[in-house]
């Protein structure tokens, strides 16, 4: 499902969503996708387009770089 299976995109959507107190359904409604897609994104099974990444970052009040990275985020890293 990844756009480029050789280069996975890591994300912190799940923890940012939990911190914001949003359910998957609520976040899905905010960014205009199916709630199932949020699950795919959180599991790293789908890498979003730039537009969707920007929408998610905006909904979670984060920078895109805080949510997505090409390297595995370290434990406890903000």
């Amino acid at each position: 499902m990844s756009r480029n299976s050789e280069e996975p995109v890591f994300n912190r959507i799940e923890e940012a969503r939990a911190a914001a107190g949003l359910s998957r359904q609520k976040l899905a409604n905010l960014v205009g996708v199916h709630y199932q897609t949020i699950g795919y994104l959180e599991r790293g099974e789908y890498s979003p387009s730039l537009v969707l990444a920007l929408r998610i970052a905006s909904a979670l009040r984060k920078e895109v770089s805080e949510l997505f990275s090409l390297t595995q985020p370290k434990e406890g890293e903000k």
Partner: protein
Amino acid sequence: MAQKNKIYWSLGVTEKGTRALLTDENSKFTWLRSQRNRRVVVLLELLGITLIASGSYLPTLAIGSIQLSREADIIIYSVTAIWVTLLTLVAYSLLRISVRGIADAPDELLDERQITIRDTSFRFAYLAMGCLVIALLVLMFFGPDLELFQPEGNDGSYLMIAALFAFASAPSMILAWRERDI
């Protein structure tokens, strides 16, 4: 004021109907929302297609020591073939119902991931169908010389019916197999 229900004539769906399929609003066939159940339907469809295709190779019934007349033999064979075909048709219908929300939905009602999984599934199916066509062409050329089909009655027509079923159901089978619980 009630919202207008847009009709997508070319796809044969309505906006409300599609939205209901994509959410939990549609209470019909909810058991097809689980990936496991959809995969069972895919396997049943595959089994049906395989059985139909094998109709071109299986000799007419010769069960142990039971000696049937030629007419009875053909009748049993034909009735069995009709039932297998009907059951495959039922499996095909369930398969279509299970993926209809995504497979037949217009792009504007789907998100980017759903469009991606639909398009890649259809591309895989297209490639698979291309291979199937080549295999059928090879069979058409060499089948008769190699006596691959039965000399009487089943001259490969069951194989053709199975291929048509495969063509019709391959995109839905791949999509149903890949998509998680809806």
